[in-house]
């Protein structure tokens, strides 16, 4: 039991929490495999990338830069910038990881936007939710990448199904419980403003990173 009397969550609760998200990583993993193939990546390279980077938007960015004929450096920079946000997310969830350093290293690799956000939905981060949700998403992501890079372009665009909007709705639903205190709402609004201003002028990833400066409102008492 936790201190507030609810039963402590288990890893399987994390898996269950991520079940509604299944179509997302499945379809995007498939389409990443397809895009990777078009970008000249072998199926092995695409699967290794999904298994080691495990961050959809950055992988899409890298593959689409390569597909457009961009340099390796440009592909690396765009993907790395997109993932800088994970520094903030991993610091926010740092204290929930038990065990030795190697164990914490491996389990921290299960942090993706969705698993991290689900793990924090009760207002404080819960390790079993992060690991359960992360494992399910990881298996789906890697296996659907493999299928996509082999099967190729027989699939339609996942956006036709409205999946892009569904993920916006997911993040909104996960943000809602936080938006009670005035300071939090103010910080969120500043983040929205920064993001909107930078989106037309900065490469993908930068708006999210700069928007995190809104967290500095936490310094005000």
């Amino acid at each position, binding site marked *: 039991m936790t201190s507030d009397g609810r039963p402590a969550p288990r890893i399987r609760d994390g898996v269950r929490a991520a079940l*509604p998200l299944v179509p997302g990583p499945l379809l995007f993993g498939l389409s990443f495999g397809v895009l990777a193939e078009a970008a000249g*990546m072998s199926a092995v*390279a695409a699967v290794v990338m999904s298994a*080691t*980077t*495990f961050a959809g938007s*950055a992988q899409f960015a890298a593959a689409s830069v390569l597909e457009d004929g961009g340099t390796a450096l440009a*592909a*690396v920079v765009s*993907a790395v910038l997109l*993932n800088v*946000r*994970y*520094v*903030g997310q*991993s*610091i*926010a*969830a*740092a*204290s929930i990881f038990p065990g030795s350093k190697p164990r*914490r*290293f491996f389990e*921290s*690799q299960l942090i993706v936007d969705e698993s991290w*956000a689900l793990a924090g939905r009760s207002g404080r981060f819960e390790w079993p939710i992060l690991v359960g949700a992360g494992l399910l998403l990881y298996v789906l992501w890697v296996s659907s990448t493999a299928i996509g890079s082999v099967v190729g372009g027989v699939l339609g665009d996942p*956006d*036709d*199904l*409205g*999946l892009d*909007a*569904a993920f*916006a*709705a*997911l*993040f*909104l*639903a996960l*943000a809602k419980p*936080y*938006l009670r205190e005035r300071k939090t709402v103010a*910080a*969120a*609004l*500043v*983040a*929205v403003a*920064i*993001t*909107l201003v930078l*989106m*037309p002028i*900065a490469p*993908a990833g930068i708006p999210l990173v700069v*928007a*995190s400066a*809104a967290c500095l409102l*936490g*310094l005000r008492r």
Partner: protein
Amino acid sequence: MSDVWIVVLVVAAFTMVFKAAGPVFLGRRKLPVRAQSVVDLVAPVMLTALVVTQAVGGNEEIIVDARIPGVAAAAIAIWRGAPIVVAMFVAALVTALVRLVA
């Protein structure tokens, strides 16, 4: 080594270190109170920024399209207490329908 493998390995190395930054280097040490109140804002700030990039994001541009009615419908559902999966379904359904018609 081919360009593809350089990209795969370098991006993976950076991402792994980013994700491990908190759990491995910070661990269970407590942050000072003021730093903690900054970190407490990471979740709401990042989530709302992700809503924006996901809802109107394009390739270095803002695109207003069928996602807006979908996300708006989901927002109403969320504020009326709908579960997450219902909100996601509403957003996908409305957006897909608008795209179908448009």
